[in-house]
């Protein structure tokens, strides 16, 4: 059997990282929601805000543990399946990962213990600080991994020594590596995407209770918090997304061309496809195009063309269909989240939100939007970077572990798929049980 180790390793990485990425965004976003809610509870002494936090902390714990377990897989997967990549970037990438472990993981895991289990062991103020530490720790951990991943897209602060299989990236400037051109914009984007998950999650569960007339006081506060958090994050996301697309245009133009389905550089201004389909063989896009809009977004004028894939060497071209579709899906969902949260905020202000069933139902379902948008965005970004694993320096196909035969990778993919399928099912089951059980009301009233 002649198995394509590269394809299998890529498939396994995609599977493991996408499954992992179901959990950290909720850790970040939900911990932020808890910080806000607990802050309000401390300030106002309102018991219902406290009940909201206590309830959220139970959901948080399960989610966090699975996030850690699936995250350990990622840390070792660089070495097991991508040994050549590890040797090439270790000098640069490794210190970001070590920083993540030392500065972020200990912070979040340590104080998580107090957040989840320490309600009756520490004062309310110390508990609030612990919640804050968990939020900061999880955000800080996102920081380092996004810095490391961004370095793959816009490498900086290094030089290359050696050639071929012995080539190594060696660090010149740690801070140049950390603040590589795409790191901060992408980090902002990732954090906002996580805040959206937290916001819509709290809103969804709260809306669910309101539709059933349960846990009114807690749910009203939760929905209010979720809607406001979602609105602020969506607006910020609009700005962040725009900024980031400009960074992509400047530093990785091939990726932008893939996102926008730009095969040919246009004579004058370049249009933007609102939606469409890509025929990769015919190198054609069919869809709804707004003329000149892409030029406007990238160059601030309607005339200057945006470079297409014709300006990229044939053997350096990324795939187009997948980045195009996932990118557009992400943007569409982002717009939907903005619209939904704006509507929710408006009705909240008018004190009509809690009595508008169709909108409540929309919020229940909308928890899926940020999850799908996050995954779509990552797929667009990582597939759009192909054929490179480090842009312009190392090709994905050259980066796999030379010593691992295809049969072993096939075995591990099958095992991971089975285990993660089971894990996903169990996670949904437990989350649902907790949500059905609901927060513990003081008088047991529903």
């Amino acid at each position, binding site marked *: 059997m002649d198995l394509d180790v590269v394809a299998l390793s890529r498939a396994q990485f995609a599977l493991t990282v996408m499954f992992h990425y179901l959990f950290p965004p909720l850790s970040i976003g939900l911990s932020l929601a808890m910080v806000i809610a607990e802050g309000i509870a401390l300030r106002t002494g309102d018991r219902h805000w406290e009940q909201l936090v206590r309830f959220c902390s139970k959901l948080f714990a399960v989610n966090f543990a699975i996030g850690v377990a699936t995250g350990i897989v990622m840390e070792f997967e660089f070495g097991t399946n991508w040994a050549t990549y590890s040797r090439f970037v270790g000098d640069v990438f490794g210190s970001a990962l070590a920083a993540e472990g030392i500065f972020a993981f200990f912070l979040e895991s340590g104080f998580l213990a107090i957040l989840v289990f320490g309600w009756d062991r520490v004062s309310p103020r110390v508990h609030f600080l612990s919640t804050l530490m968990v939020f900061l720790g999880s955000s800080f951990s996102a920081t380092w991994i996004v810095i490391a991943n961004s370095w793959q897209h816009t490498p900086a602060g290094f030089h290359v020594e050696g050639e071929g299989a012995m080539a190594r990236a060696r660090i010149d400037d740690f801070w140049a590596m950390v603040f590589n051109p795409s790191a901060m914009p992408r980090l902002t984007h990732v954090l906002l995407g996580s805040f959206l998950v937290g916001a819509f999650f709290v809103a969804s569960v709260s809306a669910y209770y309101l539709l059933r007339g349960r846990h009114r006081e807690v749910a009203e506060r939760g929905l209010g918090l979720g809607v406001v958090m979602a609105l602020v994050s969506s607006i910020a996301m609009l700005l962040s997304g725009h900024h980031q697309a400009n960074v992509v245009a400047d530093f990785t133009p091939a990726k932008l061309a893939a996102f926008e389905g730009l095969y040919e550089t246009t004579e004058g201004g370049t249009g933007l496809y609102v939606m469409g389909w890509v025929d990769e063989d015919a190198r054609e896009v069919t869809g709804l195009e707004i003329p000149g809009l892409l030029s406007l977004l990238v160059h601030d004028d309607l005339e200057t063309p945006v470079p297409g894939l014709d300006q990229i060497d044939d053997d350096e071209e990324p795939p187009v269909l997948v980045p195009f579709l996932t990118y557009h899906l992400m943007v569409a969902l982002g717009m939907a989240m903005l619209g939904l949260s704006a509507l929710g905020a408006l009705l909240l202000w008018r004190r009509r939100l809690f009595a508008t069933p169709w909108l409540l139902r929309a919020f229940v379902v909308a928890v899926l939007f940020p999850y799908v948008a996050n995954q779509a965005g990552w797929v667009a970004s990582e597939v759009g970077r192909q054929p490179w694993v480090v842009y312009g320096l190392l090709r994905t196909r050259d980066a796999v572990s*030379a010593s691992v035969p295809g049969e072993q990778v096939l075995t591990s993919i099958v095992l991971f798929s089975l285990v993660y399928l089971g894990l996903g099912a169990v996670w949904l089951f437990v989350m649902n049980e907790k949500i059905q059980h609901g927060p513990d009301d003081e008088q047991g009233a529903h």
Partner: protein
Amino acid sequence: MDLAVFWYVALGVLLTVYAVLDGFDLGVGILHLVARDDRERRLSLNAIGPLWDGNEVWLVTFGGALFAAFPEAYATILSALYLPFVLLLFFLIGRAVSIELRSKHASPIWRAYWDVSFMLASGLCVLVFGVFAGNLLVGIPVDAEGRFVGATTDLFGPYPATVGAMAVALAAVHGATFLQLKLEGDLVVRVRRAGLVALTLFLALVVAVTVQSLVLVPRALAPLTAHPLLVLLPLFGAAATLVVLRSLATGTSPRWGFAASSAVIVSLTALFGVAMFPHLLYSTEGAHLDLWQASSSVATLRTMSIIALIGSPLIVSYTVIVHRVFAGRVKLGKYSY
């Protein structure tokens, strides 16, 4: 100061701290079925409940530091030991999930399933760790390009298996001394008894591993003959074992008992480090990797040293804070597992 040597030692410290901390989590898991009814099993789980996740982070940090400081070794070892690593990851996932899910549903079948899963996953984790250590000591079949040129079954040979079994026994002992601090009543009597059984097995296996090492890994004992003072390490471990024995047998001085089982772990990991130094990988084909060949640039090692300098007091204080907040006997509450 040779930064590469410093980081070799630092990695050893990270690994040792991990072994001492998660060692008792995993040991509690191995002993889990000594607890008989639902309440006892919950006590056992909650003894490590708030602590195990933070303890596991030491492994994550070890992995990150290995990648950063010795990327050549990280890449070669992980890809050469591919399937054992994948198995380790599954067992770690299994342990985490078993703890989280076990009490989330009232059904006795559900709980029994996750109880057994918790025990098996914990035990298998430790077994695989020991298998790794044994393989690293005796040498892995990798060539000069870092390619694995043996059969996967080679990795589960008699020497690694014995080291693995020894590790499992020691983890059980360590779990027992920990539980002695956290539990009371008839349960702790049974735990102590199980701990003594594990201690007996451990001693037998230590002898077995020592004999095998003399034959199969003579270079492991070379440092002891070159620097006779190093023999204090195994002596220290032996003395600590006696303290553990006394504590488990009489049920007194539980704090000393736990400190002593920790000391046994430290002495063994130190001996492992001494045997391996200055190599990170021994190859049966002669393609060894020493720490200077495997390390990243001085610039990176310097950066990491600064990170470690700033980070160490922080991580030590978080660990101490959390362990102190949750010290004392286990009390089941609204938020317990």
